[in-house]
């Protein structure tokens, strides 16, 4: 039995895109991504839009067939054959609480669906009890059970989605930007709920987000993604205070500070240009086209993640 709950090794996820008549081009959404998650740990995954964060989460859950690499859960490699039973161990919370709940189902049926699929109850009464327990766990009233999803606010819908993910007692939940569709006050509630649930149930999260402060608050460790690659991982406070990779540094400098005095003094690192298209990736390091420190070496070979001390990993040729 390994130390880690989830081990992702060299995960690759390419998509075929029509490039023209009779021509297909490969889109490298996720290219050689490796990371580990311990039981009960939260790994934050940040990066800008379109860098492959969501794809990583979905490939882990086998919603896509990965092009290459392995994902191990509790030391066992996930394949098409055993994914059926692993669906009880790994769940997902979705970004959009409006489209992730079936508008034709009552809350009771939405939360009860995982129980139905895995036959986790012996009679109707037990099913009902389990659903009501889950609802009180995420802070919903019992009288909400017979209502439909459209009768709830965004925050409440997200709670329903979380209750559905928790129904099978998973050990690991992929949270795919679970708070980015909510307003700030509700975000805080939902995030605190995630933390409470972790303390109570000991679930591990892969917490995908683009809001660095949210991620810092909830994560033990943070991984930064750029264009399908992980460029830096570290303990969350370590990453926030002493980032190494130039991309992480510029990302952190973009975090707004609610104090105009400090904000004015702060040195903003503004990146030049746009993110290259994943259809046409730069050679070598994916970040080199926008990096202020890029050298010829960066164009030749893609840097690997190397330990810079204390588990702080960074993929950059510069020391």
């Amino acid at each position, binding site marked *: 039995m390994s130390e880690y709950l989830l081990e992702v090794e060299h995960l690759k996820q390419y998509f075929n895109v029509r490039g023209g008549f009779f021509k297909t081009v490969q889109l490298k959404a996720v290219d050689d991504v490796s990371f580990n998650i311990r039981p009960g740990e939260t790994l934050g995954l940040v990066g800008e839009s379109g860098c492959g964060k969501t794809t990583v989460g979905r490939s882990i859950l086998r919603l896509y067939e990965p092009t290459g690499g392995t994902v191990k859960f509790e030391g066992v490699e996930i394949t098409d054959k055993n994914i059926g039973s692993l669906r009880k161990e790994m769940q997902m919370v979705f970004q959009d609480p409006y489209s992730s709940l079936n*508008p*034709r189902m009552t809350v009771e049926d939405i939360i009860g669906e995982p129980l139905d699929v895995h036959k986790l109850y012996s009679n109707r009464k037990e099913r009902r009890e389990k659903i009501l327990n889950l609802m009180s766990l995420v802070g919903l009233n019992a009288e909400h059970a017979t209502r439909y999803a459209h*009768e709830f606010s965004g925050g409440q819908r997200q709670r329903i989605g979380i209750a559905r993910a928790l129904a099978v007692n998973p050990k690991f939940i992929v949270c795919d930007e679970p708070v980015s569709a909510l307003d700030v006050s509700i975000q805080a509630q939902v995030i605190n709920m995630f933390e409470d649930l972790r303390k109570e149930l000991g679930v591990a999260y892969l917490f995908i987000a683009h809001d660095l402060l949210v991620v810092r608050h909830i994560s033990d460790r943070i991984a930064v993604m750029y264009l399908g690659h992980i460029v830096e991982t570290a303990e969350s406070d370590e990453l926030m205070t002493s980032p190494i990779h130039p991309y992480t540094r510029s990302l952190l400098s973009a975090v707004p500070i609610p104090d105009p005095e400090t904000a004015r003094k702060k040195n903003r690192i503004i990146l030049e240009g746009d993110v290259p298209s994943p259809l046409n990736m730069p050679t070598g390091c994916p970040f080199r086209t926008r990096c202020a420190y890029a050298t010829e070496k960066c164009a030749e070979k893609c840097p690997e993640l190397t330990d810079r001390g204390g588990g702080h990993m960074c993929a950059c040729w510069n020391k």
Partner: protein
Amino acid sequence: MVEYNKNGTPVKKPLSLQINLEKFEKATDEEKRQQEVMSKSTTFFRDGMKKLFKNPLAVMSIIVLTLIIIVIVFAPMVVPYSYSEILSVNGKRDKGAKNLAPFVYSEMEQEYIANGGERFPHIFGTDEQARDYFIRVVYGTRISLVVGLFASIIVLIIGMLYGSISGYLGGKVDLIMMRIVDMIYSLPDMLIIILLSVVLNQIMSFKSGSALSKIGTNMISLFIVFGLLYWVGMARLIRGQILSIKENDYITAARTIGAKPGRIIKKHILPNCISVIIISTALQIPSAIFTESYLSFVGLGVQAPMPSLGSLANAAREGLQSYPYKLIFPAITICLIVLSLNLLGDGLRDAFDPKLKR
């Protein structure tokens, strides 16, 4: 310092910008309760039905259809004639009862009534073979409605299965299945119906008196043609719906839970396109009735003596100058049925799927 008056409300100072609380009254318990109005939880179906019943045209067509159905169900119990019975009085054939106008008795019948006998009136008159026309129209309506209903159900089942498989699997499977649909779409349906009824007439033989032989091979070939050809429109429609519904996160969520494709289609996809299915089925019925009517009109429909609205209209063509009412009755019935089903379908569409409104 805040001063309080004897009610316990703070007294406003003359220069203060605060609201004068003394001018306010405390809400009574009943008033408080009135604030807690919560709308009842409505389902999508109930909501749609409410909208449907607010549409006067749809309500009218529901009433008309209900009346027609009541008549065709109960009329044969009340009217003492059968659709193939040639009128007779006291066991003797009534030769004068041919082509009677509505509510007219033949000479023999008048004699019979004069002698104290009772005779049920011929509401729509009689036809050229001295059969009661009203009961023939009633049976014709029965046949037409049953054909419409069954044909739509056949179309619905085949179209739904085919469309949902094609839409859900997508990719190459979808491509091949849709090309087959295109091929079927391009076949001329009239020609196929005529060919099929000729072929089926040759190969099918039913025991006389059985239900199938009463319907006749033409009718069965009509059903087969509906089963073979007319489902393609429905299949295309459902496939399109599924393609768009499939992209929703709740489908991905169901897959994450570990639900099998069958369950996903049944529990998540079909309930979300049920409105489109209901609407297009409601609109399919009149088109099936129409097809049956024109096939019967050209002589490919039900077998004599079984009437259908189309064959009745066809038979009435010969004596059109002398007995125009024989064409009018079945024609009006077809119009009423088709019109009210179309209006009902439109009403359903507006109530359940406002996006589809033109």
